[in-house]
């Protein structure tokens, strides 16, 4: 069975759990003592990932690191619909790749702010917060513009893609790094749409959408009802 080297409070590990849940792929979570144990920086873990980062997956002996890379692999390997990473449309595929690269930026800023404020990581908090706000401004404008064109997702496909999943956790947990979503109304609407994707699962600190009305255009194929895990 697929294994994930995993930490509950990691947004980058959560992205993988989120996609696997949506795709209905069973997996085994191998808990890494990321905090307070720093296990991912230890010698034993260096054999698995010399960069000292999680997540890493082990799919039947195939080992892959890097949150965005793993999303690509999982979508291509386990999504028969081909919608989550739509490679047949070169423009959409290009957009997905571009927003996946953008997610690396939110990890270095919004995630960093949260690690500083919550676990005491020694980042310069003003710098990382300002960096996150700059990126969120770009993303909020983009999502607002897409909404005007009746495109509910970050790529211009009519359904969500792995780019939405790559960006969602950092946006959702940004308040824990002192970045208020009050300034980003389009992002708040978009996170609400993500929460209504069938198969959506939560991580600690993220709560499900309140039961009741689903936002328009929430799910691929127009289905809007969440599926219990």
């Amino acid at each position, binding site marked *: 069975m697929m294994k994930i080297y995993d930490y509950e409070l990691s947004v980058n590990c959560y992205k993988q759990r989120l996609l696997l849940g949506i795709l209905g792929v069973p997996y085994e979570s191998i808990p890494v003592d990321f*905090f*307070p144990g720093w296990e991912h920086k230890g010698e034993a873990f260096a054999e698995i990932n010399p960069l000292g980062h999680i997540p890493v997956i082990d799919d039947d002996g195939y080992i892959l690191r890097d949150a965005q890379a793993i999303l690509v692999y999982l979508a291509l390997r386990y999504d028969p619909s081909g919608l989550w990473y739509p490679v047949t449309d070169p423009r959409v595929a290009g957009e997905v790749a571009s927003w996946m690269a953008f997610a690396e930026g939110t990890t270095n800023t919004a995630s960093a702010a949260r690690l500083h404020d*919550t676990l*005491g990581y020694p980042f310069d908090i003003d*710098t990382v917060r300002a960096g996150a706000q700059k990126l969120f401004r770009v993303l909020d404008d983009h999502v607002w513009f897409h909404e005007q064109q009746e495109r509910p997702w970050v790529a211009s496909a009519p359904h969500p893609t792995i780019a939405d999943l790559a960006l969602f956790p950092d946006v959702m947990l940004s308040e*824990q790094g002192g970045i208020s979503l009050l300034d980003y109304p389009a992002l708040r609407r978009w996170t609400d749409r993500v929460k209504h994707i069938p198969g959506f699962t939560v991580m600690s600190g993220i709560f499900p959408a309140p039961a009741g009305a689903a936002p328009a255009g929430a799910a691929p194929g127009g289905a809007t009802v969440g599926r219990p895990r």
Partner: protein
Amino acid sequence: MAVSDTATMGTPSCTDPVALHEWYPISALVEITPGLVHRTQLLGGAISYTRTPGGSRPVVWPSGGEASGAEVDGLAVDHQLPVRVKFGYVWTTLGRPEHELFDIAECDEADRRIQNGGSIMVATSAPRAIENFLDMGHFPYVHTGILGAEPRTEVLEYDVEVTDEEILATRCLFFQPQAALSASDGQMTEYVYRVPHPYCVMLYKSVPTDASRMDVIALFCQPMTEERVRAHNFLCMVDAVNSDTALKRFQQLIFGQDKPILENQSPRRLPLDPRAETPIRADKSSISYRRWLSAKGLTYAVIPATAPSPTPAPTPAPTRSS
């Protein structure tokens, strides 16, 4: 580091004698690197800490200009603060406490799994964190499917005893789908809650695999400022199966669910006036806790009641019928 304003230098902003003359946890001992400076905040002032070369003795002092991560010889530090090592944590004080720290008898049992489940900073006051920990009513809504589940949301009547030393709530019963990592099924779980320190709380809950024993989980709060806390999650479990990492993960999953709830409470300091908040939050143990803090005369990280509180505090009337 962005931590450079004068408020973070070595002078505490706290003038409350009750808070000053108290012991506080600042770190798990094993998480301190010998010979290197670690920095944190206590009662509004910056403190630094290290372990002596060889690692045996923790040393704590009000911060000067030294940077976090710099090398330091603990033996050569002037102005050392008093230190205790207990439950695996380093405790210190900015005052002169006349009492020692409370005990947890279970820690002496040989098969206990004792560790720091994680020291996590939360943008709230220490008393808000303690009060949330005491409240079973939030389990179904915040720890859905784990520590509670709808529709079994009822908190049954329980007993509260208050002395000068501590608050003890007993016979607390709640239905839990997954009471601990070692639980395989839903069960009625019995809790005992104990508050032996203004900012420390522990719970004793029946062990799913051995009804005669109780797991001990504690929240030891380090008040960094009045509205910011570092919550040290202490675990003292009976579990022969799960790894330390898995036990920590379960605890962090639970505490990570509480964190945004705590951070969205307003005001961040805990109001001690009994009329300040709706009875929903103010259940029996919470009312007792607020009165107990008032009776101690604590003013740090709370909003004191305007009228002086009568001492000794009368036993609170039950607020839930059952």
